[in-house]
């Protein structure tokens, strides 16, 4: 494990060099907040950002992704053939991804890349990426990542972990991909012996600042049906208005819907983010809807994250504790309350 010191004065120049080998993605200001976006020529990430409303999950799982296309225009050579859209070329570096968001991508990977199924679209997006994470020195009050198997300085799913140490970033090199990124950027100054110590100190401080916790140690031991039929759901979820805010803000929500869009003689098959909050999500062609009521849909979301996933993969919750859904929910439905209610039931 090596540590590289990147003086902030040399940061911008390094990114410009890295741009030759990578398409860069990073946090940029948008209105009063920040979002992850592909950085245009000359554009640099704002590394002082606090949070983003949406996670960078779109990098591997875009909100709308064209999978196939066709034309019925007989003057074109390949008319009447549904063709796969070729992969975009080149490597990408996701700068400033938060540790919990990187962990979230690893959790969704279990769904898109396993022994039974390999999702070619997700995988080709994933394989292009080098994840250059940025540790969180000052976690928000809704951050409960440390109880979700990750944390402000967690390394899982990252190729490099950057730590903001005042006048410099200390880069912890985690993989060969990460090493390659740093060398493309020309960041080569070995950090002194005290770098590891400095990182550890900042890490301890950040982790200590997280006071928000959830417990789920007893959930795996309960039966699915007991939790599913628990009497509290209707009242605990009463306020939920079934918008999709939480599912879109969530870095681990992976459901999608496939749509055909047609104009004139041309058409595309698009995959869009879907949300279990909508009535249409499970609406059968017969007209029957197994999740007819609003609270049943919300129960599904929490049961999936807090029980089904736990049972299926034995990899903890399908939640990384980023706190976005808690912050953004218009009705203040709080996954921490729901999780603790399930655990104590």
């Amino acid at each position: 494990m090596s540590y590289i010191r990147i003086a902030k004065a040399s940061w911008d120049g390094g990114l410009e060099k890295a741009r030759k080998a990578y398409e860069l993605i990073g946090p940029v200001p948008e209105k009063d907040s920040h979002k992850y976006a592909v950085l245009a020529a000359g554009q640099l990430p704002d590394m002082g950002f606090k949070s983003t409303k949406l996670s960078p999950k779109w990098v591997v799982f875009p909100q709308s992704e064209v999978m196939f296309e066709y034309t019925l225009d007989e003057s074109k050579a390949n008319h009447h053939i549904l063709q796969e859209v070729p992969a975009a070329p080149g490597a990408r570096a996701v700068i400033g991804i938060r540790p919990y968001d990187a962990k979230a991508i690893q959790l969704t990977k279990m769904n898109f890349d396993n022994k039974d199924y390999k999702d070619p679209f997700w995988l080709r997006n994933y394989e292009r990426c080098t994840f250059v994470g940025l540790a969180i020195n000052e976690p928000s009050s809704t951050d409960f990542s440390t109880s979700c198997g990750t944390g402000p300085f967690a390394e899982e799913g990252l190729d490099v972990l950057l730590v903001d140490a005042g006048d410099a970033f200390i880069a912890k090199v985690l993989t060969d991909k990460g090493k390659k990124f740093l060398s493309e950027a020309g960041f080569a100054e070995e950090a002194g012996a005290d770098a590891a110590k400095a990182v550890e100190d900042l890490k301890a401080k950040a982790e200590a600042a997280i006071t928000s916790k959830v417990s789920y140690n007893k959930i795996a031991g309960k039966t699915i049906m007991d939790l599913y039929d628990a009497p509290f759901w209707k009242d605990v979820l009463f306020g939920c208005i079934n918008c999709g805010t939480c599912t879109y803000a969530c870095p681990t929500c992976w459901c999608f819907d496939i749509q055909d869009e047609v104009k004139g003689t041309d058409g595309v098959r698009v995959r869009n983010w879907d949300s279990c909050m909508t009535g249409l999500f499970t609406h059968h062609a017969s007209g029957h809807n197994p999740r007819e009521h609003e609270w049943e849909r919300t129960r599904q979301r929490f049961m999936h994250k807090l029980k089904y996933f736990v049972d299926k993969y034995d990899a903890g919750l399908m939640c990384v504790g980023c706190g976005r859904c808690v912050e953004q929910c218009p009705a203040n439905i709080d996954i921490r309350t729901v999780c603790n209610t399930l655990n104590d039931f």
Partner: protein
Amino acid sequence: MADVALKIREIARELLDSEKVDVVIGFKKGTLPVMSEPTIIRKASDTKDLIWDATCRLNLCNYLTGRKDRIGIIAKGCDARNIVGHIVENKIKRDQLVIIGVPCTGMADKKVLSDLAGGEVTAYSEAGDQITVSGPAGEKTVSKADVLQSNCCTCIKRNPVIFDEMAGEPVEELSPDNRFADVEAIASMDAAAKWGYFEELLSGCTRCYACKNACPLCYCPTCFVDESRPQWVGKGTDPIDIRTYHFLRAYHCAGRCTDCGACEAACPMDIKMRAFTRKSIKDCVDNYGWETGMKEGVRPPLDTFKTDDPEAFIR
């Protein structure tokens, strides 16, 4: 507003104890300082959870649609106007309801509060007309009037138009100088500038539909966005699809919107989509002398007509 909350609890307890209602719908304290959570109370002993303050932004009428039980409901001015609308549109029966009216002095804008606190609000309290928030910028105390949601600044009915019980003394109604200054500001732009204004306004929309789901008017069994034969609007984040969605959502509310602001309060991306609905509110006032939800038994403007309605624009 603590005395209002006490009064709400007292009325709710009495209603449940005497079995006049099966449930009471109100707000309880949220898990974040600037939030409250809509809640349903079934037992008199739980009425202690009910609160009232300037974070009770959502419109509780939204939770009434199609209910069959007898309900006690907390209603501020705009909620009460929407309840009138619900009764007119047969979404609830008047005799199912015991309306606990709350004279309202406005709701505090989440975004303004967080700007005031310099980021994340870590503590929030109210005392009389004063609001105190804490955050990275320290502790700040301001007059509530300075942090109101914009719809509350042009409110025409703070006291509920319809109620069975009142949880406070009536408050003075506002008389804003120019209620539609925002609509007129847009009207003064040329077409390209208007187009650009709405393009910028809608940027960042993720189509989560919090705006329509927070709206008591949006109760269609199948929303037009979910219709597929024909499909009126694409489901992705194409800018034209986003604009089509917002336009049609707002148009569906024409003549029915009470400007309660639940849509904007619910939006996670801080999109000010009232820029659409405000226009039809003004048009209904100008053309038909219509204010939504002020009187029971009157059909909304698009469900009626006069033979001499204005039509200067028709050839």
